[in-house]
């Protein structure tokens, strides 16, 4: 999982999604009652049971830059995070709007670039960005879709304030945790489900497959053949790749399993070559085809891009979608929504300072101890500064980095992420959470209710990334 949901504590008390003991919010009343009637020992027993369950399933997440136990279990918290139907309606409407605008932006920057001509986004920011792939210019992807699976990271700052922390338009991961968390919860707490009307998420693989089939190339005859392309079993998200391929009932392939002839992609099988129409690829642009991109890539399929550009195969997500989720482009998403859709944004954006701009850099340097600073192109919560929690030395070191390569950084105010009750060693305590819903875009847009809730397990911590010690929770959307 690559993602940075950072952020931190602020002077204001964060919004707690359960509410107070005296004033529990309605959607959490069942949970509150359950927690009140369940003895602490019973909860710890369930926690251990949950851990065993996950070990048995084998969901692990390879963490970089840490020695030892490479395939580490992401901690799972047994207290679900609950959204009611009205909250979800707001969020899902906002997500649809945002992802429509992101796809419209991608189509525009690879065609007429109206948004640059209109002066709404600085042209250099797009054209000189490595995420902008000139190879995609004037190419028309099936159904005009570039980002088919978008992971939009949300934080909640108040009852009706859902704010996007970042968009992930390339190869967002984590959906397998969403599915496995639900599965585990249903096994551990059948009674709890009996007491709630929780919207199902189990149809995600089916939705994904239908989405992928709906973007098959126009020249595809018959039922489209879909394959999932993985970098291989050493990839940190390999578990998810094989899990999704299994669930969809499609082949999982590596670059070597595919070949290109006459700009058509074939999969090697025991019954001979089979044409592939749609590739759900979990390999980055740079490595997907050594004939067009990095020549030293050994995990890609040579010629794949030529086949794509010739309209003989669909890659999902499309090549070049990274220009839409670049951290320096993020601040312009509300402008995209107004420009392409003529609508007001439903989800909020965080005020973002581009350190590459002189005045903004000056502001950031002056307020470094209040801000969160991230690498414009980083992910996974690495290389990030959380001003309010940094030492004086850390601040000074970061200021030096900012002065050396300001364009590589963006800064945002430190946000008071909402909290949810969480099992910790000392009992049950509020911990900060974020939410990554998964938006599927094909002929239509589908979103399974909920998403992946990540929780910062350390007290006061705002970093929910699994690479930084974060855990996950099951996310419940209650039906009316």
């Amino acid at each position: 999982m690559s993602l940075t949901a950072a952020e931190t504590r602020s002077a204001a008390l964060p919004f707690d999604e359960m509410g107070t003991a005296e004033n529990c919010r309605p959607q959490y009343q069942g949970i509150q009652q359950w927690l009140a009637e369940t003895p602490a020992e019973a909860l710890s027993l369930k926690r251990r049971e949950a851990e065993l369950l996950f070990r048995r399933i084998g969901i692990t997440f390879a963490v970089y830059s840490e020695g030892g136990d490479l395939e580490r279990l992401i901690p799972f918290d047994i207290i679900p995070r609950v959204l009611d139907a009205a909250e979800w309606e707001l969020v899902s409407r906002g997500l649809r709007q945002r992802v429509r605008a992101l796809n419209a932006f991608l189509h525009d920057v690879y065609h007429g670039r109206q948004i640059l001509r209109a002066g709404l986004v600085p042209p250099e920011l797009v054209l000189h960005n490595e995420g902008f792939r000139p190879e995609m210019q004037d190419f028309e992807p099936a159904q005009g879709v570039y980002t088919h699976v978008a992971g939009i990271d949300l934080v909640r700052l108040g009852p009706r304030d859902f704010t996007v922390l970042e968009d992930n338009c390339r190869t967002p991961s984590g959906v397998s945790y969403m599915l496995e968390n639900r599965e585990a919860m249903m096994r551990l707490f059948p009674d709890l489900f009996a007491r709630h009307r929780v919207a199902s998420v189990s149809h995600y693989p089916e939705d994904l497959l239908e989405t992928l089939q709906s973007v098959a190339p126009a020249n595809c005859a018959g039922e489209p053949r879909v394959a999932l392309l993985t970098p291989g079993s050493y990839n940190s998200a390999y578990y998810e790749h094989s899990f999704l391929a299994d669930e969809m009932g499609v082949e999982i392939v590596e670059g070597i399993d595919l070949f290109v002839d006459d700009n058509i992609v074939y999969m090697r099988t025991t019954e001979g070559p089979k044409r592939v129409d749609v590739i759900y690829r979990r390999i980055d642009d740079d490595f997907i085809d050594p004939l067009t991109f990095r020549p030293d890539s050994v995990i890609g399929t040579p010629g794949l891009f030529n086949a794509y550009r010739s309209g003989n195969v669909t890659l999902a997500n499309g090549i070049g979608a990274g220009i839409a989720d670049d951290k320096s482009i993020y601040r312009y998403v509300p402008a995209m929504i107004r420009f392409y859709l003529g609508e007001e944004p439903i989800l909020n954006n965080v005020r973002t300072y581009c350190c590459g701009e002189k005045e903004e850099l000056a502001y950031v340097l002056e307020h470094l101890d209040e801000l969160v600073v991230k690498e414009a192109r980083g992910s996974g919560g690495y290389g990030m500064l959380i001003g309010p929690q940094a030492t004086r030395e850390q601040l000074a070191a970061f200021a030096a980095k900012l002065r050396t390569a300001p364009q590589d950084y963006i800064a945002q105010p430190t946000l008071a992420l909402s909290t949810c009750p969480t099992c910790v060693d000392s009992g049950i305590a509020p911990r900060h959470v974020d939410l990554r819903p998964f938006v599927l875009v094909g002929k239509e847009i589908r979103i399974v209710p909920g998403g992946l809730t990540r929780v910062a397990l350390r007290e006061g911590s705002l970093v929910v990334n699994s690479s930084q010690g974060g855990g996950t929770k099951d996310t419940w959307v209650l039906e009316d």
Partner: protein
Amino acid sequence: MRLHVRHQTSYRCDSPVGAAIQTLRLTPRSYEGLRVVQWQVWSDTHRELPIFADGYGNLTHCHAVNHPHATALVFVEGEVDTATTHGIVRGAPEPLPPLFFLRPTKLTQPDPAVAALARQVAPQGSVLKQLHALLIAVREKLDYLPGATDVAAAAGEALAAGAGVCHDHAHVFIAASRLLGIPARYIGGYLWTGTESREYQASHAWAEAFVHDLGWVGFDPANRMCPTEAYIRTSVGLDYWSAAPVRGVRRGTAAETLAVAVNVIQAGGDQ
């Protein structure tokens, strides 16, 4: 001037390779200075190769052989009518805006030597004068010496070596030009050298820079001149990697011998 091009590439490996695939950007597109009369690209295994226009507008063929083979032949043959435009390129497909061509790449990354070159020509008044000064300066700093650099040498490396071939001259010119704030790009193509002898220089590379009021203008630093009717442009890109006339990947470790024969002659003429 009517030019006739014949270009044959033969690949021979010391043991069979399992599969090989190539992207070929060897087909000119018409613009004010050139009209394509006819043009064909084919191979010993494919009478017709699939074609598409890439993001830069280059007509791109793809040649794939997916069975073990030790030899392969690729042929290009065509005829064009050319006219002198003093290097000005008008009427060509331009899918990407000039601003894009200020983007640095690994091969055109400026280093202190490239920056010094840019400073040396900066005092020339107009953009056009700067570019003409650069055209001469690049060649002065960089001898023409086949085999001096690897294809993938960066501008700075070539300058440090003090010698290179046409793509090195182009990369240095492009890197310095971009430093001056002038959009510049890499051009691959063919060159009529006026003799009928087998001339490896017939495959050529040069640069184009964007000048307000004129548009894209060609500069050939290797030959210290702007392109004439002897030039046939077949590919455009940010640098060699994106404009490479031929880019290939093959499976296996067999050693490959390449024989390239390029003939550009004036059709219907004595030469």
